[in-house]
């Protein structure tokens, strides 16, 4: 049932990027995204520099380019949206291969595509070098709302338990001759979903009791201290700092 001993997105390794404390990497990825968004869309060269920066990070972390490209599929819905803009956009129009396109639309599409792609690649690199569990510990260390972090933690832990339960329910349905052919079978599936929800809810209550029994008072205790030295912070700061410099230089040139 469970797919290997690591999360699907994580690529085990022992590189300087893997070793950085998660809170540093989270801030670095976010800082990079902000810097990219602040870059003017006319500055083609600046985006080239950003791509180069990410390529260096990927090389240091030994993440194969093919893997990054494959995972960029998550961006496809945005791409479709961006491609539509030049056709439906207003304003000045130009002819490309006999098709009339909106000039502001083209700029907007490029802006979305370039910035989203850079952001997506940065988060792919973050996910590939940081275990989900560590990511949550990092988020906790960054004082993100404790309740949200705990919810994410429980999702991580119980996802496979709930999927397993859903799979058993499906097998039990099918063993009794159920086949989902068309809309008429929807009520059965809806009831199954309802039953799964109730079961998960009840499990939530039991887990809460188990937590209370071991002295839970509303706050997760700090079990692992995740110290980050200023050297680690400054190592992580290199990426956003360079991206920000690029953005500032590009702004002054445009």
């Amino acid at each position, binding site marked *: 049932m469970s797919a290997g001993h690591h999360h699907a997105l994580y690529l085990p390794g022992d590189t300087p990027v893997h070793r950085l404390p998660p809170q540093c990497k989270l801030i670095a990825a976010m800082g990079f995204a902000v810097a990219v968004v602040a870059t003017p869309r006319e500055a083609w060269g600046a985006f080239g520099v950003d791509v180069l920066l990410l390529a260096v990070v990927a090389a240091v972390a030994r993440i194969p380019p093919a893997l990054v490209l494959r995972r960029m599929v998550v961006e496809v819905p945005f791409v479709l949206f961006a491609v539509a803009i030049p056709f439906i956009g207003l304003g000045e129009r130009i002819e490309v291969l006999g098709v009339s396109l909106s000039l502001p639309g083209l700029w907007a599409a490029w802006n979305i595509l370039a910035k989203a792609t850079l952001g997506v690649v940065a988060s792919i690199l973050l996910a590939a070098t940081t275990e989900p569990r560590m990511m949550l510990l990092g988020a906790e260390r960054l004082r993100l709302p404790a309740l949200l972090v705990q919810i994410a933690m*429980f999702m991580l832990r119980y996802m496979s*338990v709930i999927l397993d339960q859903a799979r058993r329910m499906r097998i039990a349905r099918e063993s009794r001759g159920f086949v989902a052919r068309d809309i008429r079978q929807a009520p059965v599936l809806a009831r199954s979903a309802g039953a799964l929800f109730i079961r998960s809810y009840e*499990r939530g209550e039991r887990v809460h009791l188990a*937590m209370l029994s071991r*002295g*839970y*008072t509303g706050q997760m205790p700090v079990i692992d201290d995740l110290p980050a030295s200023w050297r680690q912070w400054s190592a992580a700061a290199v990426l956003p700092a360079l991206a920000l410099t690029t953005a500032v230089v590009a702004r002054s040139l445009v």
Partner: protein
Amino acid sequence: MTPGSDSGTAVSLQVSGLAYAYPDGTQALFGVDLTITRGERVALLGPNGAGKTTLVMHLNGILTAGHGTVEVAGLPVRADTLREIRRRVGLVFQDPDDQLFMPTVREDVAFGPANLGVRGADLERRVTHALDRVGMLEAANRPPHHLSFGQRRRVAVATVLAMEPEILVLDEPSSNLDPASRRELAQILKNLDVTVLMVTHDLPYALELCERSLILSRGVIAADGATRSLLADDELLAAHRLELPYGFAPSAHPR
């Protein structure tokens, strides 16, 4: 503190006149009295719906008594003593997936003591010791959902041992275990030097592990005595919907 049953030894758990009705009016317990002295291993037997789980929920204050008292090593279960009570009473739930909620085994075992304020090397020592006692030390850094059911149950015991409880309360410890896991868990429980209250309807398991048994039936303690003699009393068992497995004779199993 009330004196122990006869020899004056320390009392781990004292329940007197405990009655409880659920909010919907269903009365589950009708005045339960029991005393367990330190170091004893006692089985609480009873059919489904006898009120076993309800009783267990009172032992660490998850449910609060409608009537009567629960005392753990002399400390009454009250709102202001809950923290200490929950340290003293280690509850092992029936479904280890309910008990193990942290991303790794090590963090899960550390959860209890960390809530009590234990940190650093001291915490590490407690975790290592507890996992070692259940033979799961090498699984420390694995996520709980990658362990077998039997291993998860053992880790669940460790999560409670790490809190160094006065009394270990196990809810159906043998349920869903294959024979080998069942034997391994029995071995572990036998070697622990803590007071154990084991809630079960697995009578051979009670005979193997516990000198003394209580029968909880229709919300009261219906019998209290040596496990062997209780299990030899066919009429008593039949009256409380308890049954030995086919072909099992307690007399054929010397201790």
